[in-house]
């Protein structure tokens, strides 16, 4: 039963950290809370025995993307003073809208009956391990995998082109 308790604690901490991302005034603090959120989500992946995704989540999200965000924040020299103010009215409206969205989601999901599967009652499956997932990735999904490298190249070229200073802007 320790796994259940651990999962619930991880879930509560994930939600708390995600809330802190949204409500903290300082952008750098938001980034750091988002890194914490990704760590907790990786913990949840491990609880579901999806070890490969847990590690990829940590390396790519917490390691690469969040460093990129932090880098941009530091580069633009943003701090609490330059943070745009949100009017109180839009806080109220957004809270009501988000609460309503949650209620609608839960109401829609309430009546779902899950079809019981053979893998239902056995112990946690081993499909999330690196070996099994690698087998699937490099046999069944090898073409999308190669196409994703083209996506990365185009994203890289696009980012460099966009962020490059124009000649006349260099003083």
């Amino acid at each position, binding site marked *: *039963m320790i796994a259940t308790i651990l999962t619930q604690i991880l*879930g509560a901490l994930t*939600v708390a950290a995600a809330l802190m*991302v*949204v409500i903290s005034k300082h*952008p750098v603090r*938001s*980034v750091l809370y988002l890194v914490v*959120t990704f760590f907790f*989500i990786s913990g949840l*992946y491990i609880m*579901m*025995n999806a070890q*490969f*995704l847990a590690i990829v989540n940590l390396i790519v*999200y917490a390691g*690469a*993307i969040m460093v*990129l*965000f932090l880098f*941009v*924040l530091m580069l*633009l020299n*943003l701090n609490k003073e*330059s*943070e*745009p*103010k*949100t009017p109180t009215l*839009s*806080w109220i409206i957004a*809270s009501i*809208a988000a*609460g309503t*969205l*949650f209620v609608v*989601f*839960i109401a829609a*999901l309430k009546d779902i009956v*899950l079809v019981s*599967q*053979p*893998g*239902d*009652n056995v112990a*946690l*499956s081993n*499909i*999330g391990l690196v070996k099994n*997932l690698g087998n*699937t*990735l490099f046999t069944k*999904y090898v073409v999308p995998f190669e196409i994703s490298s083209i996506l990365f190249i*185009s*994203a890289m070229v*696009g*980012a*460099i082109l*966009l*962020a490059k200073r124009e000649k006349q802007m260099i003083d």
Partner: protein
Amino acid sequence: MPQATPINVDFYVILATLLFVIGAFGVMIRRNMIVLLMCIELMLNAVNLLMVTFSCYYNNADAQIFVFFIIVVAAAEATVGLSILILAYRQLRTIDISIFNKLKG
């Protein structure tokens, strides 16, 4: 792993819904474009969590491969989004999202 309990799908569904709603809430209240992008990452992660849950529940590896591709696309999206943001900051000297209604022309 002996005698492991099957995962509690309801718990994960509610958790993913909650994370998605928090991300949507952030998109609604924040004006800072970088934080807005971060809220979108949060929503993507909520979907990832849901997909991993059902992949584990149905013992099917396809969904985990899809999560892998979602992470790949999110990385590319963050790169391009942030470079557009830097470009916009150079022109406008602000990252307030409400200034961007000028893009309507």
